[in-house]
């Protein structure tokens, strides 16, 4: 177990280094760069531009810039935002809560609903419910998230007026109920794709288990249908889903990016887009590293949970 964690840590560090190098390289390939915002300032001369570049360290060769950035990061210095001159961690921290709120709630919805639809589809195979779920999943998978977002806003905010069209809270309110009211639409829209994916996988996993001998054994023992399903079938069907959940995290992050933009949700997704627009390298790199760590953590947790449930898995 300890050996497993040490090995995982090494792998993660190597992965993070590779991710950061690719991210850093690609970022600096984009035309313009952080200086382009000053270029339009009236009275700006080339000399001033060069001086700013030197101050920011942007005139050095790329590998040096990277090593400088990496060295500071190791010391806990994530850099300072070009845009508002605040430490990167402070900037990310300000948006972290919003994204986490959105991700956690949409994950709860998608796992809960997706699992239920999947199990019911498997136990009532080829029923109206099953066909509806199948078609529904195909639609949710083939239509982009932002479209659902826009339609959601149009129907529930503009036409029916039930739900707010954007933002995380009403200025001047900020009660828990107000937050929840704002959360409903974006979290459901973000969850849609994952409900679709989750229900399909869950259906297959349940069908795999439902015909296994040990399920028949349970029935032969006189165990009630309900317990057969919950304990024997679902317990085993959820095993492959745990790994899947760990891998869904990157999807969720990129989905959040779109959803947050559509719903003007003040989360990391929007911060990322805005920072890209400003060529705010330190913030973009910070977000990149942050989400990479999140994904690695997600997979690690998935492996640990799977091992704790399945006695056959020995982490090594």
């Amino acid at each position: 177990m300890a050996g497993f964690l040490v090995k995982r840590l090494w792998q993660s560090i190597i992965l993070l280094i590779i991710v950061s190098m690719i991210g850093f390289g690609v970022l600096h390939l984009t035309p313009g760069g952080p200086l382009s915002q000053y270029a339009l300032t009236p009275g700006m001369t080339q000399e001033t531009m060069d001086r700013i570049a030197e101050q920011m360290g942007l005139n050095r060769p790329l590998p040096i810039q990277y090593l400088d950035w990496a060295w500071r990061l190791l010391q806990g210095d994530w850099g300072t935002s070009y845009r508002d001159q605040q430490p990167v961690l402070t900037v990310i921290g300000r948006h972290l809560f919003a994204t986490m709120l959105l991700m956690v709630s949409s994950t709860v919805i998608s796992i809960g609903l997706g699992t239920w639809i999947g199990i019911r589809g498997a136990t009532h195979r080829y029923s109206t419910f099953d066909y509806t779920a199948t078609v529904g999943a195909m639609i949710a998978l083939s239509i982009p998230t932002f479209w659902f977002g826009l339609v959601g806003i149009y129907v529930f905010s503009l036409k029916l007026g039930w739900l707010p069209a954007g933002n995380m809270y009403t200025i001047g309110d900020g009660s828990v109920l107000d937050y929840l009211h704002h959360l409903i639409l974006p979290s459901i829209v973000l969850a849609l794709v994952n409900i679709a994916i989750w229900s399909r996988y869950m259906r297959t996993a349940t069908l795999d288990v439902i015909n296994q001998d040990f399920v028949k054994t349970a029935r032969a023992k006189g165990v009630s249908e309900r317990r057969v399903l919950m304990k024997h079938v679902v317990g085993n069907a959820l095993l492959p889903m745990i790994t899947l959940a760990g891998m869904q995290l990157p999807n969720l992050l990129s989905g959040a990016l779109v959803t947050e933009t559509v719903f003007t949700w003040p989360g990391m997704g929007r911060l990322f887009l805005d920072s890209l627009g400003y060529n705010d390298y330190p913030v973009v790199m910070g977000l990149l590293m942050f989400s990479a760590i999140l994904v690695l953590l997600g997979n690690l947790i998935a492996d640990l949970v799977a091992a704790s449930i399945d006695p056959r898995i020995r982490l090594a």
Partner: protein
Amino acid sequence: MIAQGRISKNKAETAMSDSVLSVRNLTVDLPKGMERQHAVQDISFDLPRGEILCVIGESGSGKSVTANALMGLLPSLMHVSSGEILFQGQNLLKLEKTALRKLRGRVVSMIFQDPLSALNPLMTVGDQVMEVMAAHGEGTTETREKRALELLTEVGLPDPTLMLHQYPFRLSGGQRQRVMIAMALALEPDILIADEPTTALDVTTQAQILELIQKIQRKKGMSVLFITHDFGVVAEIADRVIVMEKGHMVEEGVADTVFTAPQHPYTKRLIAAVPRLRETDRPNASEYRDETDEPVLAVEKLNMVYRSGGGWFSRVREVKAVQDASFTLRRGRTLGVVGESGSGKTSLGRLLIKLLDSDSGQILYEGQDIASMRESDFRGLRPKIQMIFQDPFASLNPRSTIGHIVTVGPIAQGMKKADAKAKALTILEKVGLDSGAFGRYPHEFSGGQRQRVGIARALMFDPDVLVADEAVSALDVSIQAQILELLDKIQRETQVAMFFITHDLRVASQICDDLLVMQKGRIVEAGPPSQIFYDPQDPYTRELVAAIPGTDHILQQA
């Protein structure tokens, strides 16, 4: 067949008084579009109190369907269309779901064929045994645990206290089957239904489980309905026998009578097809004299070790799969390898065709050591050493035609397409398939026919050596006999040397000229079948031979 049905019914009526369960005119429908309309048709029998009733038949005979119908556990696609299953005066088929559930596990228990998949992998053995009691609201948590411990002790599991908290994956197949039996006995049911409970087990384990079932049955006076395809098993434990063929009951009677004087032609055929231990060795198929002819393959001191784990931080685990194996394969002769699962016999076969690499030792083929050869150098020799696999369903690509399956190898080795096809047609005919098979797909064939395709595929190369890994183990006895006959015929015609891996000693005695007995990677005894079976020297060989079901019974003669 109609006459038979009537006879059995008459018998049933006279035996009515002391039977625990009566099946009357039971018919179970198959889904539409299957080869026949009924899984079982109009069968009637009684399960006598305190006796073991064996239901025997080949695959598709409806024996398992019968067992599942009794439990109310038929697959959702199958329905009972008529008949009654009477228990204590009530018809189980008319019973409500909840009422039926209350009978399961308490009055009627069941154990299954594959102990590896019959236990929930995520629950401890103890929890699964206790679940039976909990499902029927018996006792408290403490008393249940005490009872579970008793049961695990009763079925002869080692260290029952530890076993209680063990997960199934840590147990061997035989141990898991013992857990299944413990579970089935938890509430002391009147009836135990055993659906091929020993088919997936090694002979020695099979003998132990049969003994256990028999012992418990006698002690508790239980009635056992025992489903099997193996007449050897029937000979070991049956009081009465029912023979089934294609959904019909063709014969019923006291076990001894059915053996000594089978009435129905199908029963006669089935008994005749059971592989027997030969008293004398197989008539020599080789045209060469042993002393003068060079061996085709000479194996010397071959070793192979499986290593697992061994990353940066974990210890390497070593399993010696093959240790110091030495033997020779001769033209026109069959060398058999017998042993339990895990004895290394399959690894040895794989070493011969270089699907596995050996760690040390030599395999001499035409004077060259192929064991040390690189894969690229060996590829030219590969056609000469061919393999026949165990599972006729998994070993043929379902998306390829038989023609493609048979010719793809030779064409890859440089044969012209037209030549390959011509040759394929002759060989298909040789293995007993008509030329129409060439363009058809594997799913259109039965297990036995597929195994013929597998043999044809191997023969396409005119091999010098055939490695057959459990080539007939997945087949019904009557088909088994046909395939063994075919292999014998082919060997006489082509003088191919065969390396025949099997766990079934009776099969081995049919086809082998010489035998190797393997245990834990070592060859513990070698010799002709007559010596191995009738004068075994090694204690392990003696144990194996003693475990063959039905040996000390009539089956040995005839």
